[in-house]
């Protein structure tokens, strides 16, 4: 097993629209990989395919050498894939800590009867979940906000909580969908540090991002998609100077300029 | 064979009735994403308005006009007093409110018109026509014709006119519709008025067949729901196909399986459709709002 994640001829169509053309993708363990491309390039579709939200039209996904092509999202998560979302939908009725605990609940084993009788093992499990969640919150630097209602936090901080939720169950692969969106410059650079620390834990990171400064700063390798096609892949320096990439961005006159 | 034909003819008549009542809440559902539990009571109210119109000496034609006008006003008031204050609230809140309205209308009608069944005349004699051995009521043919006409009109209105497109836009996404310059409130009010008029038409058509009773609308409401789901919820052609299908299946089931389970047939068919083809026969689905 040389690759933690591998896709073979993975494609997705919605009706007649090709959201993702047959796509071969490989990512090595411990890598930080960025997936970039203009709007509508198929990046989020790709993440949704990986995390099981969409079923591919064709092709295979292998995670740690295991087929996960038609597996439901929660199983994919349990196998060790963490995921954050482009637009955070925090669970508003829950506190920050509970939002994160939710990510670890899939590791819980004690059934409903333990909870009804408040058995000591259930209590212990709940404590363990809380401990894990606090640790994850501490990791993203949000431990002091643990008892707040999540919707009362600024957007950038909500994203960090979402990140903690995706990390709490000790994934091997973390999918980040535009983690820096809505963040201040300071928060963004904190995030870069955070992503590096995540990699240092031995977690492979795949991120989709529009903020090129962040992408160039943090990633080991970059993959570029356009209209569902793979147009380039390589280390940041190569991508920066790749004419196809420049054309894809500037030709489209999108707001995101490469700097 | 002759009996089978007779059964199918009668089943189609009931089917028209299910479809007519279904049409109204398909409209409401499409536009504001809410099931109107007071739909049956609107039908009943129209019939009682009709009785009153006749009793104050109006001719049948003018009674029809009176009822349609009264229902249009009522539809506007309904929208203004019940829906408008709750717009934007979860659909379930509005559903409860329509349940409240149905209780109000049931009891109001009982207090005003009394609990006894009443009569409402028809344009036609009660003598059945014999068409190749099959007996058909002139009123039933009338119901069939009016149903088809109303369905066609509503279908054309929705798919071919500007108003229809506005309604579609409101149904899809009221916020965007507002940004596009559509006066959402007016469109919604219009839909409620139209719905009320359709319920009024249903009431006027059913009254001579069913008598005017307090339960005349509510007793077929659930079947109409089922019909619209079977046809594909939110779809206008689906409502009529679902209604006719249900009417025929129900009558054949009652005749050839057992009349003792007649009421269950609609619900068994509904469950089967939901589980096998959840989109209904006409898989036109409006996005769920919650």
């Amino acid at each position, binding site marked *: 097993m040389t690759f933690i994640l591998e896709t073979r001829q993975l494609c997705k169509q919605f009706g007649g629209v090709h959201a993702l053309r047959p796509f071969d993708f490989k990512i090595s363990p411990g890598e930080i990989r960025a997936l970039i491309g203009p709007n509508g390039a198929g990046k989020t579709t790709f993440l949704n395919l990986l995390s099981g939200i969409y079923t591919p039209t064709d092709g295979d996904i292998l995670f740690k050498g295991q087929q996960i092509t038609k597996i439901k999202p929660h199983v994919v998560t349990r196998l060790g894939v963490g995921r954050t979302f482009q637009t955070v939908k925090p669970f508003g009725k829950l506190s920050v800590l509970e939002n994160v605990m939710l990510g670890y609940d899939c590791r819980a084993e004690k059934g409903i009867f333990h909870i009804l009788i408040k058995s000591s093992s259930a209590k212990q499990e709940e404590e363990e979940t809380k401990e894990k969640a606090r640790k994850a919150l501490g990791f993203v630097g949000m431990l002091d906000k643990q008892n707040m209602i999540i919707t009362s936090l600024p957007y950038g901080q909500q994203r960090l909580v979402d990140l903690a939720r995706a990390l709490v169950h000790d994934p091997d692969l973390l999918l980040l969908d535009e983690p820096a969106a809505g963040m201040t410059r300071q928060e963004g650079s904190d995030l870069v540090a955070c992503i590096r620390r995540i990699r240092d834990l031995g977690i492979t990171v795949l991120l989709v991002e529009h903020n090129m400064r962040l992408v160039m700063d943090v990633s080991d390798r970059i993959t570029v998609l356009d209209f569902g096609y793979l147009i380039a892949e390589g280390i940041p320096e190569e991508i920066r100077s790749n004419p196809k990439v420049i054309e894809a961005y500037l030709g489209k006159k999108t707001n995101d300029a490469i700097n | 064979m002759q*009996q089978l034909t*007779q*059964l199918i003819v*009668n089943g189609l*008549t*009931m089917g028209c*009735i299910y479809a007519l009542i279904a049409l109204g809440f398909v409209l409401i559902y499409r536009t504001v994403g809410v099931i109107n539990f007071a739909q049956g009571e609107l039908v009943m109210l129209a019939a009682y308005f009709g009785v009153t119109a006749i009793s104050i000496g109006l001719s049948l034609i003018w009674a029809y006009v009176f009822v349609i006008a009264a229902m249009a006003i009522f539809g506007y008031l309904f929208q203004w007093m019940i829906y408008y204050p709750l717009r934007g609230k979860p659909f379930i809140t509005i559903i409860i409110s329509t349940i409240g309205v149905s209780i109000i209308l*049931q*009891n109001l009608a*009982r207090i005003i018109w*009394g*609990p*006894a*069944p*009443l*009569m409402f005349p028809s344009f036609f004699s*009660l003598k*059945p026509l014999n068409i190749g051995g099959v*007996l058909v*009521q002139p009123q039933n043919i009338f119901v069939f014709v009016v149903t088809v006409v109303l369905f066609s009109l509503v279908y054309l209105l929705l798919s071919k006119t500007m108003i229809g497109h506005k309604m579609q836009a409101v149904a899809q996404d009221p916020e965007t519709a507002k940004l596009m310059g559509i006066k959402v409130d007016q469109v919604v009010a219009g839909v409620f008025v139209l719905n009320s008029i359709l319920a009024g038409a249903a009431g006027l058509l059913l009254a001579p*067949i*069913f*008598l005017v*009773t*307090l*339960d*005349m609308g509510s*007793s*077929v409401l659930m079947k109409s729901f089922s019909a619209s789901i079977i046809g594909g919820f939110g779809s206008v052609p689906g409502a009529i196909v679902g209604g006719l299908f249900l009417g025929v299946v*129900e*009558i*054949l089931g*009652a*005749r050839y399986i057992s*009349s*003792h389970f*007649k*009421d269950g047939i609609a619900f068994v068919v509904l469950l089967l459709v939901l589980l096998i083809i959840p989109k209904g026969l006409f898989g036109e689905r409006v996005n769920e709002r919650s």
Partner: protein
Amino acid sequence: MHKKILIAALILGMVLTACGPAVQEQTTQEIPTEQPTQLAATESTQATTEPTQAATVPDTIKIGFVAPLTTANALMGWSMQQGAQLAAQEINDAGGINGVPLELIIEDNSNTADVAVNAINRVLSENPVALILGSTSAQTLAMEPIILENTLPTIIMGSSPSLTDQGNPWVFATRADDGFAATAAVKFAVEDLGAKKVGIFHAAEEFGTSVAPIIISALAEYGLEPAAVVSAPSTDKDYSAQLLELQAADVDVILVWVLPAPGILLARQMKQLGMDTPVVANPVFGLSQVLVLMTPEELAGIYSMTDCVPSQSTDEKILAFVQAYKDRTGTTPDLFGALSYDSVKLFADVITQVGTDLAAIQAGLFAVTGWPGVCHNYSFDAKGRGGYDISTVDISTGTLKVVGTVSK
């Protein structure tokens, strides 16, 4: 979280205190009338034979009345309420019961068992000495344990045999049970109409469904089996499937047990399907509100088994009742108006004789023999059933023509 519960607690407290004053009001109202009934209740448990007048004379004598005044059976409940109120008015105009005015405590049961039980408890909190129930069997059965517990003499107008088969000595029925009516209907169908192939059409609700087996066993007495048995829920509007099944079975008489609106639709749809099979029905076609809605064609060939037809009577007292009822309501009294009127008058008579002691009223009712009411001459048997007359009426002419009577 605690705050949330605290808020809930406060509101709950408010709700409970809101019902607090109502309770207080209740108890203060109860005080003057409570004593005699309590006295009566203790006496009744001791089963005293000599009826004693209560020590203090109450302001009013209260009779409870629970009927479906709203929802599905509101028509029946309305007739009952009119009849009962007419009787009460007549009694009070004539000076009350031994000089004490009669008061009816009228409550609606919403046609459901839960509300019926609430209604009877509401009535009981006013300490009535008797109770009249105009409820369907399911509701009556739900109330019977409470009647037994409170030893309250109760007159019901239900005809389901199960109502008087519960072994409850406080329940009296002013109508023959369905067994009696069904037998009479079968007798008429077979003997008078010469039926060979009988079809049965009954309402899918409790009152129709429970009659079907009784009709079938009555037919068996004549060595007949029903050619077809069909049913329809009262909310159903189209009976062609059922009627065509009867037609296919080639029946020569249809026995029908349905509610008013379905009865009219049934008669109409038969004619629309070209069926002129004679129909022998439950009292539904004896109701004046039903007759006025039917055309002469629809009326043809329909017979109804009814307890009584006050408007066709020659008895002056009964005609006076018919007139008074007409003056009051604008309609001819039907079976339920008459039964309800009789129930109030009967209670009043018994209370006049034996006083307000509950056990004495019970004994008084059992002792009734041939009490002449506007609907029946009442004598109660051991089960508490009275009023064993059934008339067959021919409605072809638009009026109720009695063509035969069966008595026990």
